[in-house]
């Protein structure tokens, strides 16, 4: 076997081949440009149960716009990778959905987003949205995102009919929650539905536990780049507390192969097989669509309880302040893209969000609340967010993706019992260090 000549021959071949290819094909599409081109712009949105609100908005916008908008719904479980892949190619969208924070940081750093600060200083965007929400879509004080969905705090949903059946109290204190857990276990009902196989639903538990036990500072340390934050006592307590909950059977026995994205966990709640679910507010619209009877008659909500001995403020909220539209700097239809995102400030859009079960982040939302399908829930959610001393963005979105996604995987491993608490902490510290 002439092994020595093969690599040389192959590399020469590879070089010749690459040059030839570059000449033939490179001329076709040299620089990645935006997808739409001349008479349309492409908008990417996250695919879950409620994209029809955005689709209706697009249809309305297209009625009066010369340049049409094409909405592309990307399946949720695949959204971030697909967006990243598309942004690096010639099929990049003009406008795309994101979570602000770390989710747009790499694009901002590569100068791939349009700076929207000037637009926020003029009508119609000026003063249209709650300032804290707009701030969550900013990077280093410059605005890059226009809020386009409602606020999404993580709420403890529960089945009040089941609770009444077993004479249980609202699970907004630790003891009430523990009592509920043991009662439901005894009666063959899964206490908490958990879509652990998608990893991020389990992260919500860790976020709340850490915040209740040690307050905001635990994560802000990590977010600022200090990897020793992972080793903090509060983090360890939170992990151990989660472990105790798991071992108590809080999530049933099949949680490691139950997902959220495929609607398995919500269906458990909506069909009465599970009694509670800790989930973002969007799950309410999901239940409205898929289990209307449950949503209207049996569903109730409360805040995550305080953990005994914890120092965090029990009014703190975790979740997604909102979702945002950001504009690709390489768009060839900037004015249309801007007009489209400015459409979000319209009252008609806010009303459409309300009707769909979302609480919009507009400044005048409180006046619109009575038209919410379930005014009690609307009021509850709005108050929860307004009164919160802090609204912590989901960790996997607050951190850059090279740390955020390994975090999700690591949480999945922890909940499956494959790593211990200390291993989790050291793995995360390593992941964050090697990503910087």
């Amino acid at each position: 076997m002439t092994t020595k000549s093969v690599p040389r021959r192959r590399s020469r071949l590879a070089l010749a081949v690459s040059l030839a290819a570059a000449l033939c094909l490179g001329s076709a599409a040299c620089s990645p440009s935006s997808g739409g081109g001349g008479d349309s712009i492409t908008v990417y949105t996250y695919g879950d149960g409620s994209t029809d609100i955005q689709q209706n908005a697009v249809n309305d916008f297209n009625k009066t716009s010369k340049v049409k908008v094409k909405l592309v719904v990307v399946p949720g479980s695949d959204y971030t990778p697909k967006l990243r892949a598309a942004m690096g190619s010639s099929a990049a969208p003009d406008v795309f959905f994101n979570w602000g924070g770390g989710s747009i940081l790499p694009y901002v750093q590569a100068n791939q987003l349009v700076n929207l600060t000037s637009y926020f200083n003029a009508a119609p965007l000026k003063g249209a949205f709650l300032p804290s929400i707009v701030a969550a879509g900013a990077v280093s004080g410059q605005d890059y995102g226009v809020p386009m969905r409602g606020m999404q705090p993580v709420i403890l949903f529960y089945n009040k009919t089941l609770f009444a059946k077993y004479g249980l109290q609202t699970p907004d204190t630790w003891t009430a929650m523990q009592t509920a857990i043991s009662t439901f276990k005894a009666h063959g009902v899964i206490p908490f539905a958990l879509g652990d196989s998608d990893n991020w639903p389990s992260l919500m538990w860790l976020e709340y536990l850490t915040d209740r036990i040690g307050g905001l500072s635990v994560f802000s340390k990590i977010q600022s780049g200090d990897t020793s934050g992972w080793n903090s006592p509060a983090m360890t307590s939170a992990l151990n507390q989660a472990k105790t909950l798991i071992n108590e059977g809080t999530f049933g026995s099949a949680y490691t192969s139950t997902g959220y994205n495929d609607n398995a966990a919500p269906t458990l709640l909506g069909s009465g097989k599970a009694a509670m679910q800790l989930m973002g507010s969007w799950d309410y619209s999901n239940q409205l669509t898929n289990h209307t009877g449950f949503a209207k008659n049996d569903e109730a909500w409360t805040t995550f309880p305080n953990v005994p001995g914890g120092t965090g403020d029990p009014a703190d909220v975790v979740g997604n302040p909102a979702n945002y539209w950001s504009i690709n700097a390489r768009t060839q239809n900037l004015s249309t893209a801007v007009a489209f995102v400015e459409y979000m400030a319209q009252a008609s859009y806010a009303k459409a969000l309300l009707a769909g079960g979302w609480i919009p982040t507009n400044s005048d939302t409180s006046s619109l609340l009575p038209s919410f399908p379930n005014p009690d829930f609307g009021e509850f959610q709005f108050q929860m967010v307004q009164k919160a001393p802090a609204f912590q963005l989901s960790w996997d979105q607050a951190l850059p993706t090279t740390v955020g996604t390994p975090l999700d995987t690591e949480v999945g491993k922890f909940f499956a019992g494959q790593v211990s608490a200390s291993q989790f902490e050291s793995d995360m510290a390593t992941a964050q260090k090697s990503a910087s």
Partner: protein
Amino acid sequence: MTLAATRTRPAPHPHPARRRGQARVGRPRLVWALPGLLFFGLFAVAPMAYSLYLSFCGNWGGIGSARLVGAQDWQRLVNDGNIRQATKLTIELTVLSWLFQTPIALLIGVWAAGRQRNRAVLSAIFFIPLVLSSTAISLLFKALLDPNFGLAPSIGPWIGFSNGNILGSPNGALAMLVFVGGWQFMPFHTLIYQGGARQIPKVLYDASSLDGAGRIAQFFHITLPQLRHTVTTSSVLIVVGSLTSFETVFLLTAGGPGSATTTLSFAMYQNAFQDFNYGYASALGTGLVVVSTLLSLLMVRFTGFGSMRSTREGM
């Protein structure tokens, strides 16, 4: 996997003395091979070279352009516990797949090589899994094994999973990967063994019957040795297939629960397209290329594909 040549003609050698008159006519110049070579070079070889380059580009995430930063990805690769676990899992999966598929395919293939009528019917049915794509099969079993809404709660107890959470337990998930892979490829390997068994000359069996050998002795002393090359072919396919098995893992378990079924291929996908660390993923990929190349060389050596000797040798 190839047609081991049974003709006795050797590969053409340059012997101009013997082919004086026909030296040039009818022999295409190697330039005929150029389009194919270029194409293969562009889409298979060039990416490998590029993969090596990217493996020295650190944490490049696909935004902007890649820059060489050094061998940090390789250092991390060697020390990475996750990769070590993925390697262990990949080897386990390979060995288990071989142990599951080979004996059964061999037995059924040899049996099906007989000429009874119902064997033709059964062969037709065995072929059905081949008609479904790998994707369809994985999705089918994922639906069937759903712990809340599938068959798993009913059949789980029969195989030792009382709560039906087969896919949610590390051993169960790995077992399912082996099972689904076997379900999918068993007909293929059965056919390979059937083809191989059909080639065994009857005369060998007749001769041994005359000597008083029973069925089992015949199986071990005639059938198995004659199927030597077939076993190699089939085994190599199973091994290489397990190394590259991505689709089943992706669709059935997504590497889970946790990371209990994160094989090397899946780890590569995760690093590249979920963690957006193209540099590290390329280091892993390049490492896999080296291993696969070695496997390929061994394969060429052991089965004699390169020289194509006949299985009928020595008769």
